C-alpha cells in the first residue's frame, strides 16, 4: 500500500456495501474527514450505524490519524 493511502476494514452489515476483505482510500487527517469521504464514496453507509476503531480502540470523538494506522468500521456487535 502506498504511503498516501489508508486501509480500512469493515464488518457485519457494512460488508453488504463494501468489500468484506477491506478497502483502500486516500489518506485523511482525522476520523471526521474519514466519515465524510466514506459517505461520498459509499452513500449506502449513510443509513447505517457504525463506530470507528483506530488501532483496535473505538474512538468516540474526532481523532487524528497517523500513517500506517489500522482503521475498522464496526456496526453494533451481535456475537453470542
Amino acid at each position, binding site marked *: 500500500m502506498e504511503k498516501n493511502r489508508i486501509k480500512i476494514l469493515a464488518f457485519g*452489515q457494512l460488508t453488504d456495501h463494501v468489500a468484506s476483505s477491506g478497502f483502500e482510500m486516500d489518506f485523511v487527517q482525522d476520523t471526521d474527514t474519514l466519515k465524510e469521504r466514506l459517505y461520498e464514496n459509499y452513500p449506502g453507509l449513510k443509513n447505517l450505524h457504525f463506530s470507528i476503531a483506530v488501532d483496535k480502540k473505538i474512538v468516540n470523538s474526532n481523532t487524528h490519524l497517523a500513517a500506517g494506522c489500522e482503521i*475498522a468500521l464496526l456496526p453494533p*456487535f451481535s456475537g453470542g
Partner: protein
Amino acid sequence: MPQRVLKFSKTMPDSSIFVHGAISADDIANAIQRLSEFQNIGAHSIFIGQVRSDAIEDQIVSAIDYAAYKEMAEQKALELISETVQTYQLNTAMVQHSLGMVKSGEICLFVLTASRHRKSSLEACAYLVERIKKELPVWGKEILEKGGHIWKKNTE
C-alpha cells in the same frame, strides 16, 4: 501437608477464544473435567448460547455465520476475563465463541466461571456474558432457510 490449593492460570494468553464452527458438548465436558483437578473450586457457572431457528418475517433461520474483528476481539476478551476474575475473586474463567457457520440447535458461545462459592460464580457468569455480548467485536449473519440473510441484532 501437601500443597492443596493449586494455581490455575487466570487467563489463557496462549489460546484463542475462537473455535471454527459449532462448539461440541464434548468440548464443554472436557472443560468441566479439567476443573476437577482444582479442589478449591466449589462452584462453576456455565452459560451456553445456542442458535435458535427464529422465524423472521415468515422466514426460518437455519444457521448463523459468525465473523469477528479477530485481534481486537481476542484482546478485548482477555481484558474482560481478567477483569471478571479480579472483580469476583474467581479461580478461573473461560470463554469460547464460534466463527463461521453454526446451524440451528448448535452451540456458538460457552462461558464458564469457577470460584469457591456459588454466589460469586453465578454473578460473574451473568456479568461476563453481558459484557461479551455488548463489547466483543463479533457479528452474526442469520442465514435464511429459503436463501438470503439478515444481520443478527442483540436486542435484550
